Each structure stands twice: as structure tokens, then as C-alpha cells.
């Protein structure tokens, strides 16, 4: 294929290939590696490791909620430390790092037909700074006073006051420092992903031929580059308030009968900065999941993704809109209530492109040839949980409906369903899908199916009933649910049930981890393209791909990523780098 002269419409290469950095030792090959694929594995392994800490923390808090008063060591102080670290780890250090640092690094160069990221050295630095951020975060567990217990939103004034665990100890300082490091590291990686997509694409790979995975990760990265600076300044200002006694977020305060030396700051300013980052953050996690799941569905249903152009514009539209909805997290924050009209409107408008994506996923299934492989099962489960969690967003986004429900378990159930369970199901689907490319072997099918069913149904049973506790009025972030007149005996039983399900689902993840490790040596050999997929990462001469990805010559792209079951073609898929025509092109251009 490498000798074929470029067909019509394929421009000649403008820039000659650059020599890659070649590692000279084991250290530079596997540890301080500049190969995006190695960096991807490093990101993924670190994110998984810290994610396991978050899983254990969720068990501990469910012990307290499901069986109140049984476990003495879970003091209110400890409980708040658990929820804070659980939330922060899951949102930032696991999901963001895994989708962008993990999947982004592995898939972007391969899928756009590049040898590596455009700035490999900065890419390597990005990982090491991320690792440092994780270590600083972990160190807070061992610091005097323990980690911060301010809630993952870190709202001042309480975040830096003595009534909150870690507020006047090391906890909050380490938390803020870790976030600052994370953002620095992410910015290095993020610039790389954006430039690689814009400048590193191989010949023939137009933007409108990119797989949706790349579109999702690309748009999410652009958003992250715009959103994280807001969190960055918020962290710096709070660090100054805490360490130097400035008053960015601290008004005059009388704490336990004592006047603090602060005056004139605005607690609500922090909330605006936090959510200016925090809402796009939801989509920073969701958009890569949207992109990946589109490719999983298309590949395993052997059918082109339905409405590709609409899918691309929906991703871009959601990304843009998500910057003007942030204050829907603040309807009852005490901000000017007239903001509610604006933010409720923008928030509900965002439901339209999101709904289009859902329609196009299910319409891709229509008249497909659906192989119920494990990646497909996870994709289907994603649609169920995402639709469920997205629809409860219509409750919370509609300002007046949010009033009784905000700060209750309804919110916890909603965001876990939509940005916890749904994206993580995509992560699992993606791992079952790409593991054969990364290792050359398939994950075990039996263990995989067990993992799928327990995770999907278990997670649904955890979070679906939880909405009704919130409807009842049970507040979130309550370390003790005692002496509450609204809570019936049966509501406590429901909490115990949820806790038991949480343990079962957590256990299933151990089976998954075992599968990941066991299959590296014992899995069935996969070959280069076990799913018979069209995109470039499956067309590499070696599996796993070697440094430089594509052998001597880069592939040339002749078609979009979704030529499945093309009428007239012998096979039910045509790789993107396959030249030739099969009747009049139906590729959307």
C-alpha cells in the first residue's frame, strides 16, 4: 500500500518527516519515555492506581451511610475527608487524566496518522508533573490533620477554617498545590493534543474524516485549556487567603466567638470561578466518552455512525455552550436570583445537541449488524445510564425544580449516573476494545461479561433509587443521618441496600483488574485488527505498534472513518487507508 501514488484530492506532503527521538537505554524507553504510547500507559496506570484509592474511599463512606454508628473510626471528620478526596480524585485525577492523558495520548497520533505527538518532550514532562500532583495529593493523607474535608468544591470560607478537617492544617494547602501542579502538567499535554490534531494529521486526513474519538478528545482538550485557568486562579487566591491571610474570598467572620482577621472578600466569587471551570469539566469528561462510544457503536454494529456531521457539530456546540451554563450549579447559592432565568435557558438549550447525539447513537443501531461484543455491551449500557442521568439534568437545570432538589441525594445520584457511571462504562468499553492493540491479546471474554453485568446493573441499582432519597429531602454531605424526621425506617434500609450494591460493584472491578493483568500473558492472540475496524490505529504494521507507529511510510487516507458495510464492497469494512472507489461516494463532506 505504501507505493501507491496519491489519488485525486490527496495533497502532497508539505513538510518532510522529522527524525524521532530514539531512546538509548531502558530508562529512556520505558520510564522517561517520549513515546506517546508509553506516556499513555503511564497516565492510565497512575490514574487507575489513584482511582483505586477513590474506590476504597467510596466504600468507607457507604459503610457509614448504610450502617450508621457501626463503624467508630468513621468520625464526621474522616467522613468529610473521604468524600472530598473521593470526588476530587474521580473527577480530576482519574477521569480527566485517563480520558485525555491516557486515551488522548494513545489514540490521537495513531488515529490521525502521526508518528507521535508534535512535542514529545513536553508530553513526557506533562506526565511527570501529573505524577507529582498525584503524589502531593496522596501525601495529604499522611500530613498532620489529614487531607482536606472541604468537599470537592472546596467552598470558602469553610475550606480554610478550623471547623473543617485540614482547613487550618496541611490538608487544604496540599490540595490546592496539587491542583495547581495538575493544571500545569495538563496544559503541557493539552497543547500537544491540540497541535497534533491540527498540524500532525497525515495526508488525506481532513478534519471531517477524523474519527469521532479524536473529535471528542480534541474538543474536550480545547475546553480544558480554556476552563482550567479559572480553577488555577481560584486555587492561587485561596492559597494566598490561607497562607498569607489575604481576603479574596474571605469576608468579615466571627468564628466560634472570635473575630478573624479577614474583611471584604467574596465567598461567591470563588463559586463563579470554580464552576466556570467545573461545568466545562463535566463535558471535558463527557465529550471524549461521546466520541469513543460513537466509534464503539459504529464498529461493533458494522454500520457507519449516523449523521456524522451533525455529531461533530453537536460536540463542538456542546463544548461552546458549556461555557455559558456554569451558574446552574449556583441557583441556591444566593447569587442574584435573576441569573436563574438566563442560566436555566442556556442549560436547557444544551439538552438539544445532547439529545441529537443520543438519537444518532440509537439510529446507528437501526438496521445495523449488531455484534454483542463486550465493548458493544458497555456502549449500550452507557446509553441507558447517560440518558437516565441526562434526563435528571433537566430537573436540576430547570431553576425552580432545582430549589427543593439541590444539595440533596438527588444531585449525588444525578451526577454519578451522568458523569460517573456513564463515562466509566465507556472507559471499560474502550479498554476491552483497544486492549488487543495495546497488548496484542484479547481480554478474557467470560470475566469480561461477568464484569459488565455486575457493573452495569449494580451501578444502576445504586444510583437509580438514590434519586428518590433526594426527592424525599435527604441532604447530601451528611456524615450522620440520625435524628432526621423526614427519614423513614425504610429509607435507612434503602441506604443499606445501596451500600451493599456498592461493595458488589467494587468487587467486580477487582475481577476486571485481574483480567487486565492476566490477559497480558494468557489472553487469546488478537492479531492486528480483531474487530475488523476501519480507523488507522488498526492498520499498523506491528501490534502493539512500535515507536513511530507506522513503519517506513505514513499511511495516506482516502476515506472517512465509517465505511462499514459499503454496498458493493466485498468485506463489511474498508480501512481509511484503502484506496479505490466502490461506486459513488456517500461520504459526507
Amino acid at each position, binding site marked *: 500500500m505504501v507505493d501507491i501514488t496519491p489519488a485525486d484530492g490527496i495533497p502532497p506532503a508539505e513538510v518532510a518527516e522529522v527524525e524521532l527521538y530514539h531512546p538509548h537505554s531502558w530508562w529512556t524507553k520505558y520510564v522517561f519515555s517520549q513515546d506517546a504510547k508509553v506516556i499513555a500507559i503511564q497516565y492510565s496506570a497512575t490514574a487507575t492506581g489513584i482511582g483505586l484509592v477513590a474506590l476504597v474511599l467510596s466504600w468507607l463512606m457507604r459503610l457509614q451511610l448504610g450502617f450508621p454508628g457501626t463503624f467508630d473510626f468513621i468520625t464526621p471528620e474522616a467522613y468529610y475527608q473521604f468524600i472530598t478526596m473521593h470526588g476530587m480524585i474521580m473527577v480530576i485525577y482519574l477521569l480527566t487524566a485517563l480520558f485525555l492523558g491516557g486515551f488522548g495520548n494513545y489514540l490521537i497520533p495513531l488515529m490521525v496518522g502521526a508518528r507521535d505527538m508534535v512535542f514529545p518532550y513536553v508530553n513526557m514532562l506533562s506526565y511527570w508533573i501529573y505524577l507529582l500532583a498525584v503524589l502531593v495529593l496522596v501525601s495529604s493523607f499522611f500530613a498532620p490533620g489529614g487531607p482536606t474535608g472541604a468537599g470537592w468544591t472546596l467552598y470558602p470560607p469553610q475550606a480554610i477554617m478550623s471547623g473543617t478537617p485540614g482547613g487550618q492544617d496541611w490538608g487544604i494547602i496540599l490540595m490546592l498545590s496539587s491542583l495547581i501542579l495538575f493544571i500545569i502538567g495538563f496544559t503541557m499535554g493539552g497543547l500537544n493534543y491540540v497541535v497534533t490534531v491540527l498540524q500532525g494529521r497525515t495526508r488525506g486526513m481532513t478534519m471531517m474524516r477524523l474519527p469521532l474519538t479524536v473529535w471528542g478528545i480534541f474538543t474536550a482538550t480545547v475546553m480544558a485549556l480554556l476552563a482550567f485557568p479559572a480553577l488555577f486562579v481560584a486555587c492561587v487566591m485561596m492559597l494566598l487567603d490561607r497562607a498569607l491571610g489575604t481576603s479574596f474570598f474571605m469576608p468579615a467572620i*466571627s468564628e466560634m466567638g472570635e473575630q478573624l482577621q479577614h474583611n471584604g472578600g467574596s465567598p461567591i466569587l470563588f463559586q463563579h470561578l470554580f464552576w466556570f471551570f467545573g461545568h466545562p469539566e463535566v463535558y471535558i469528561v463527557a465529550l471524549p466518552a461521546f466520541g469513543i462510544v460513537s466509534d464503539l457503536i459504529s464498529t461493533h454494529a458494522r454500520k457507519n455512525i*449516523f449523521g456524522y456531521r451533525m455529531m461533530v457539530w453537536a460536540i463542538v456546540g456542546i463544548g461552546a455552550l458549556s461555557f455559558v451554563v456554569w451558574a446552574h450549579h449556583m441557583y441556591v447559592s444566593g447569587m442574584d436570583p435573576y441569573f436563574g432565568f438566563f442560566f436555566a435557558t442556556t442549560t436547557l438549550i444544551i439538552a*438539544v445537541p445532547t439529545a441529537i447525539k443520543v438519537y*444518532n447513537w440509537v439510529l446507528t443501531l437501526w438496521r445495523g449488524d449488531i455484534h454483542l461484543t463486550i465493548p458493544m455491551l458497555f456502549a449500550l449500557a452507557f446509553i441507558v445510564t447517560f440518558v437516565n442521568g441526562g434526563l435528571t439534568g433537566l430537573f436540576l437545570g430547570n431553576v*425552580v425544580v432545582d430549589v*427543593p432538589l439541590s444539595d440533596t441525594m438527588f444531585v449525588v445520584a444525578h451526577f454519578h449516573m451522568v458523569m460517573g457511571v456513564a463515562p466509566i462504562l465507556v472507559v471499560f468499553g474502550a479498554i476491552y476494545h483497544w486492549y488487543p492493540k495495546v497488548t496484542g491479546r484479547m481480554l478474557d471474554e467470560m470475566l469480561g461479561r461477568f464484569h459488565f453485568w455486575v457493573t452495569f446493573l449494580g451501578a444502576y441499582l445504586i444510583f437509580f433509587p438514590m434519586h428518590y432519597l433526594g426527592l424525599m429531602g435527604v441532604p447530601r454531605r451528611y456524615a450522620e443521618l440520625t435524628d432526621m424526621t423526614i427519614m423513614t425506617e425504610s429509607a435507612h434500609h434503602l441506604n443499606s441496600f445501596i451500600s451493599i450494591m456498592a461493595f458488589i460493584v467494587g468487587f467486580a472491578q477487582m475481577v476486571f483488574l485481574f483480567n487486565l493483568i492476566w490477559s497480558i500473558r494468557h489472553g487469546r492472540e488478537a492479531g492486528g485488527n480483531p474487530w475488523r475496524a476501519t480507523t488507522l490505529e488498526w492498520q499498523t504494521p506491528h501490534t502493539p505498534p512500535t515507536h513511530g507507529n507506522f513503519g517506513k511510510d505514513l499511511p495516506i487516507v482516502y476515506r472517512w472513518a465509517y465505511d462499514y*458495510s459499503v454496498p458493493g464492497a466485498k468485506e463489511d469494512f474498508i480501512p481509511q487507508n484503502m484506496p479505490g472507489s466502490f461506486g459513488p461516494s456517500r461520504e*459526507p463532506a
Partner: protein
Amino acid sequence: MAVALVLVLVVVGSVLFHLLSPWWWTPIASNWSYIDNTIIITFWITGVVFAAVVLFMAYCVFRFRHRDGNRAAYEPENKRLESWLTIVTAVGVTALLVPGLFVWSRFVNVPSDATDVEVVGQQWQWSFRLPGKDGKLGTSDTRDVTADNPLGVIASDPNGQDDVVVEAADLHLPVGKPVKMLLRSIDVLHDFYVPEFRAKMDMIPGSVTYFWFTPTKTGTFQVLCAELCGQGHPLMHGVVMVDTQQDYLAWLGQQQTFAQLSAPQQTGSADQAPGKTTASGLKIAAKLETVGSR
């Protein structure tokens, strides 16, 4: 086959759970049944969409599952269908938004006959202040908070002298009269939340926030703090008693004004105030102290 069946069961199970489970909102005790109605509309629209999408998916999985010799259709786009779906979605979203914004405009516009009631949050207790005979609350400042002046009422403001101060005790409200809750905090964020009233709002040190409602049922209701405010957060309960007008006036008559409380050599400290059932914040702090040192 099994997968399609499970998807159907997820829908059926979710609907049955919604209809049959005992977990539902508390009986409403305020005028905000509008909010409940909006929630019901939202449940209907979202429920129909959820069932439709998942059942359609289940049908596809059943009907188009892989069998030997099957081949998928090739249809990259269908502009007509995509436009129709967009329009239908936009209509559905509008049907949710319009009633929502209509009720919100009621929520933010306080009726002119509403009485002011101040709620002051601090770690981890609730205090209240009612305007005296002049109908006006005196101004306040966190920097004026002392042991004798726990709410930080500015002593030089004549409007504040006759204010009724209810420190760390129950609040009473007359039934059927709209009240504007003026919310303050002297330390961290709190949130005044009574599930039966459906309304809540954060309290921010340095600001006065508000919401309004009309209690429609007499009885005793629990106040829950709904914004994380430190370790004592889950214990920051309070009590609102909605009384008949007669009972309310009787209770009001027993309360002390700011002027009485700040008079020199006053002996009746707030600790002996009648009707005191709220655990005081300092007691909660002490309890946490002992738990923490275990």
C-alpha cells in the same frame, strides 16, 4: 436476546419502582405546590423519553442482532429525520422550561405583604430575629458580633432596639402569612432548608440572601442545613413551628428584644429561653471534640 430483555426490564423496573416504592417527597406545608407540579411535568416528559429511547434500543438489539449473512444498511445521513428529531426535542425542552421560568418568577418576586424574618447561621446552630413593633429589622454587621450580641445587631441603629432575638432556639411562624426569610451567616456558608417548605437558599457571610414562602400547615418542622459547613454540618438541625395566629402571639410575647438582652446586669441568658430544643453549636463542637479524640 438476553440483552434486549434486560433493557426492557430496566425500563419496566424503573417505572414500577417510581410508581410503587415508598420513597417520595414529604407532604408539602407551604405555597410551593407549583414546584411540585413542575416536578411532576418533568417526571412525565423525561420518563416518556427514557422509556422510548431504551425500548427502541432494545428493539434494535433484538431485531438487528448479528446472524450469519446479515449485513448492515449504509445510510450516512438522513437530513429530514435529523431535523424532525431536533424540532421535537426543542419543543419538549420548551415545555419544561416555560412553566419552570414562570414559577421561578413567582419565587423571586416577594409579595409586598410578606413579613421579614431573619435567620442567622453559625457553626452549628440557628438563630432568628424578628422585627419589633416598628416592623423594621435593625442593620447588622459580623464585626459587631460579641457574646452579648450574638447576631451582630448594630447597637446605634434605633430600628434594631425592639427587634426580637431568638438565639439558638426554635422559630415560630404564623400559618397562612407570607414570610420573607432574610438569610445571614456570621462564619461560613450554610443553607436554610425545610424539606416540607420545598424552598432553600444558601447563607453567605457578608451578604443577605432571601427566599419567601407562606406556611400552609401548622405543625413542627425540622430545619436542615443544606450547605456543607464543616464537621458539625449533619447535626445542624433546627426547628420551625408553624402556629395558629393565637399561639404565635403567645410565643412572641415571651421573647426578649435586643434592647432587653443587651441591658446591663441582665440575668436571663439565652440558655434558659423557653422552647429551646436546638442543640447549641458549641455543644455540637464539644461532641465532635470527644469523638475526634477517641
